[in-house]
């Protein structure tokens, strides 16, 4: 059966990962019709939603894990995967279980989680520091201390793409690392504006202002262009999720020797377990429905998980697979995962609407000379009105 | 019931564009085979009336009959009319032949029949050599002939012309006028012809209807219209240069006014008895006798020439009578200079008399 799958994974590492899924699906005698839309979720989402609304949905689509699909579920537009989940014991194998919770609505399961992504990483180019005769920083503070020398050598200390989600993401990473997990959850989960406006977050905003200084001069848009600056040594570091590792891998770099990764910026080693999931719009054709369920099951198979996550640089959603020859950074991630140093990701906690507002604020903050205090005040306001 | 020999009858025709009343309960009967000219100044509703007859405009009220059939709500093509427009309105992308046969093809007339009719029309109009040209390759006169031909082939009862000659130059206009007249003689169709050119109206018409503000002011033969205008408007409108008017009043059969005393013995009154009243007398410039003829005129006077316009065949003299301009038309050979005193003579039999208030003919 031909299944059309829409996603926005079009960077080198991502496309490589998708092809693993496609290969696996094609190997079952079905056909994967790739519906990649470049340009990120904002370009792809209207297409997905309007096609579902118009009654000509694709067979499966990728969404960020979280509350994005809630309304589609409410409207009965998505396929109920509960039977697949039960048959394949998803409850037992998916780890952390919060991932499956995010797929669950009123007791039924509507999505197949595919990977775990964590934002909480900073990537550093070892060679830049070696050339300057400096030790590679092991946490944010050291990084900031050495930044002047890096800048003096004509390198950009911190690479940063121009898109709002990158800037907001980096901020959240700083928040967890500097203000700590509790404060982070108080703000993002409990929507406590007093914390958002409080002294811990004031420090976060100060740090963000510093990061803003350090990222002056990186005139790139896409995250992977920023990553590429680190890979080529034009920049020393980047705060970016683990998907950046796919780019390093594709460029033939080795973790530990060529680049260093610092989970939780080396201050507060923790992962936020967000990730991607596949949703399956409800279809009339029973044959298609059966195939959709087959695909859902396939996505969680250990072999698929290994192949996909190795290519994408993300972590598998089941603890029972052996990633085999994983590199340094993946190992660090797996360890954190195993030790339960996990917290829910911001996208799963906040509504897209609030996320958008936060993104708007932070991108403005990042590109202007807005005072940290002003930004914090507006941030607290957004949190206060979040739903 | 309609009179048996009427071709087109119009009953109480009224037409409004929004608030503007363009035609006002108009009645008109046109005889079979008659050449009727609708004459009037610009905007008086001539084209509107013609378009109503053609079915191109829907009247607000009233009825239209053609050959005894009530056609008020029929399509233009079902009325048995053909129409010729000022701008020719030829279909630019079709050849002359295509233009002529378009209506017939629409009516699904058999091929052979179309051909013979086109050939006949082309012969009558002498446009046979042009049949395969496009309108762009024709002169104005040729175009207008094709436009007439388009009505001709359709074998219609009534021809409608909307100022067909006014886009042509003077010479061509004169020629085509004569041809039209010949055509009418040979076809014997009813023709309704709109123009604002008096010469065309006078030369072509069996009868002329003078229109003003959506009403018919007078309907009559050219001779009647010219010599016995029913009201001052018609009198003024017809004739170039226009009629001279002298204001005054009637007193027991004599007209008194501005240096002029006119015993109206020779004048045929429209109404049997005319009471004394303010009146206007009108006299055409060419009816003012000059030179040797003055002596035989019943009334004589003298004016001073102010301006002389030699027009080749005639000479027009502008003079003054009681402070109002007074025009005299003289022979082309006449030699008059501005400032000359001119003896003139007036024959009441050739004058028109109007009531000063109603402006109707007395």
């Amino acid at each position: 059966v031909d299944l059309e799958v829409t996603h926005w994974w079009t960077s080198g590492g991502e496309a490589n990962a998708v092809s693993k899924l496609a290969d696996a699906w094609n190997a079952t005698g079905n056909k994967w019709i790739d519906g990649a839309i470049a340009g990120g979720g904002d370009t792809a989402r209207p297409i997905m939603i309007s096609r579902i609304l118009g009654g000509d949905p694709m067979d499966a689509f990728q969404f960020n894990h979280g509350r994005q699909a809630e309304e589609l579920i409410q409207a009965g537009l998505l396929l109920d995967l509960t039977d697949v989940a039960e048959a394949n014991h998803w409850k037992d194998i998916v780890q952390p279980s919060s991932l499956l919770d995010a797929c669950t609505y009123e007791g039924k399961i509507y999505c197949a989680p595919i990977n775990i992504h964590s934002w909480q990483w900073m990537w550093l180019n070892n060679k830049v520091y070696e050339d300057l005769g400096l030790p590679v920083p092991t946490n944010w503070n050291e990084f900031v201390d050495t930044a002047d020398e890096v800048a003096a050598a004509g390198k950009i200390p911190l690479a940063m793409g121009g898109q709002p989600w990158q800037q907001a993401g980096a901020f959240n990473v700083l928040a967890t690392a500097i203000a700590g997990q509790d404060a982070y959850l108080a703000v993002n989960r409990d929507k406590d504006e007093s914390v958002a406006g409080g002294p811990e977050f004031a420090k976060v905003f100060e740090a963000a202002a510093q990061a803003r200084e350090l990222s002056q001069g990186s005139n790139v848009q896409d995250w992977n262009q920023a990553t590429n600056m680190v890979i080529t040594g034009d920049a020393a570091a980047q705060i970016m999720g683990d998907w950046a590792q796919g780019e390093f891998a594709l460029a033939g770099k080795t973790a530990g020797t060529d680049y260093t990764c610092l989970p939780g910026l080396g201050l507060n080693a923790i992962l936020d377990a967000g990730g991607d999931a596949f949703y399956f719009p409800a279809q009339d054709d029973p044959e298609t429905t059966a195939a959709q369920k087959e695909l859902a099951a396939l996505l969680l198979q250990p072999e698929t998980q290994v192949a996909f996550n190795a290519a994408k640089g993300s972590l598998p959603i089941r603890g029972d697979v052996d990633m085999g020859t994983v590199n340094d950074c993946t190992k660090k991630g797996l360890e954190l995962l195993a030790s339960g140093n996990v917290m829910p990701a911001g996208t799963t906690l906040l509504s897209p609407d609030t996320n958008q507002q936060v993104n708007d604020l932070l991108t403005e903050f990042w590109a202007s000379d807005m005072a940290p205090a002003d930004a914090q005040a507006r941030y607290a306001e957004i949190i206060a009105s979040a739903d | 019931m309609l009179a048996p020999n009427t071709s087109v009858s119009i009953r109480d025709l009224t037409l409004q564009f929004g608030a503007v009343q363009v035609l006002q309960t108009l009645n008109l009967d046109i005889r079979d085979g008659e050449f009727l000219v609708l004459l009037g100044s610009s905007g008086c509703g001539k084209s509107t009336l013609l378009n109503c007859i053609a079915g191109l405009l829907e009247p607000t009220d009233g009825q239209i009959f053609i050959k005894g059939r009530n056609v008020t709500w029929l399509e233009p093509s079902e009325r048995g009319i053909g129409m010729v427009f000022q701008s020719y309105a030829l279909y630019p992308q079709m050849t002359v032949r295509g233009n002529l046969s378009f209506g017939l093809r629409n009516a699904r007339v058999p091929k052979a029949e179309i051909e013979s009719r086109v050939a006949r029309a082309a012969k009558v109009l002498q446009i046979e050599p042009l049949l395969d040209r496009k309108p762009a390759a024709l002169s104005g006169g040729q175009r207008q002939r094709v436009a007439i031909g388009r009505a001709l082939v359709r074998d219609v009862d009534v021809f409608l012309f909307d100022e067909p000659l006014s886009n042509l130059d003077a010479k061509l206009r004169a020629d085509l006028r004569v041809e039209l007249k010949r055509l009418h003689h040979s076809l014997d169709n009813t023709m309704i012809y709109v123009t604002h050119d008096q010469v065309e109206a006078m030369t072509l018409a069996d009868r002329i209807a003078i229109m003003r503000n959506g009403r018919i002011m007078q309907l009559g033969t050219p001779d009647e219209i010219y010599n016995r205008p029913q009201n001052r408007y018609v009198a003024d409108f017809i004739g170039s240069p226009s009629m001279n008017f002298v204001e005054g009043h009637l007193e027991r059969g004599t007209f008194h006014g501005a240096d002029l005393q006119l015993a109206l013995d020779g004048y045929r009154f429209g109404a049997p008895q005319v009471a004394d009243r303010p009146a206007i007398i009108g006299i055409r410039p060419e009816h003012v006798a000059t030179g040797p003829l003055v002596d035989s005129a019943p009334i004589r006077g003298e004016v001073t020439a102010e301006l002389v316009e030699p027009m080749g065949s005639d000479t027009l003299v502008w003079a003054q009578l009681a402070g109002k301009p007074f025009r005299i038309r003289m022979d082309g050979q006449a030699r008059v200079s501005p400032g000359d005193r001119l003896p003139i003579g007036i024959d009441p039999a050739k004058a028109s008399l109007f009531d000063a208030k109603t402006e109707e003919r007395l």
Partner: protein
Amino acid sequence: MAVTHPAEVAAPDAARVRRPSRLLRNIPAKIASIPMVLIALVIFVGCTAWTVFYSFTKSGMLPRLQFVGLDQYDRLWSTPKWWTSIENLAIYGVLSMILTMALGFFLATLLDRKVRGEDVFRTIFLYPFALSFIVTGLAWQWILNPEFGIQAVVRSLGWEGFSFDPLHSRELVIYGILIAGIWQGTGLVMCIMLAGLRGIDEDIWKAARVDGIPTWKTYTHVVIPMMRPVFVTTLVLVASGVIKLYDLVKAQTDGGPGGASEVPAKYVMDSMFGAQNLGQGFAASTMMLLSVVIILIPWAYLEFGGKKRG
């Protein structure tokens, strides 16, 4: 004034025919206008009404009939991004209208001076119109890129201090977009203006020459005022493009840097599809529509409603 009747005017009882039903006249014309009427009423009016209606609801990813009154509007007008958007639209709109019209008219007058190679110049000025905004945005993003583009080239020629980087400056970014917008839109304006200029009576030019009016003054005092309808047409055309400005921004800056080049249409898109807050998007688009309607209705009435034949 008595209307003269010929003697044989018939009795008024001659068969009268009643006016047939108006609905049944010109059936083919009525059938043929069905698509147009449907598009106008169902799509343009209907969809707009639908949008306005849902702007009073709390619709998220999907339309949802949960009324919240004017909440969406309150939120809209208290969002800094919206303010930035309309500010940008105002700057871009006013400048692009003025500049495309001025440049378009200027080019048209140059070409109207019987220049050699008019065809070539006209094609050069017009071709950008054939390219989509996406292409336009990308091309200009590339040219204005400080690392490869104009700035780099000028610096490499020796002017080290030269700085021209509008796309990465919050203050200048909208002007960077403007450069691209003008590049794309001027050609069409020029074409229309040229057509308008060619439509002006030769005799007016002659009269002005006889009066001793210099050429430039003839343009400013006589020709431009005469071209009012042409200017109106182009203005409408340019304005309708300005309101919809989206693709260009999306391709050139994606609203950046830091949201400094946001525009209303993008705000609508971001709200509807990024934030999955349809209600907010609908409120924003309703505001856009409202402003258009306020500007346009009187104009449309004057231009099209008043007179009978175009």
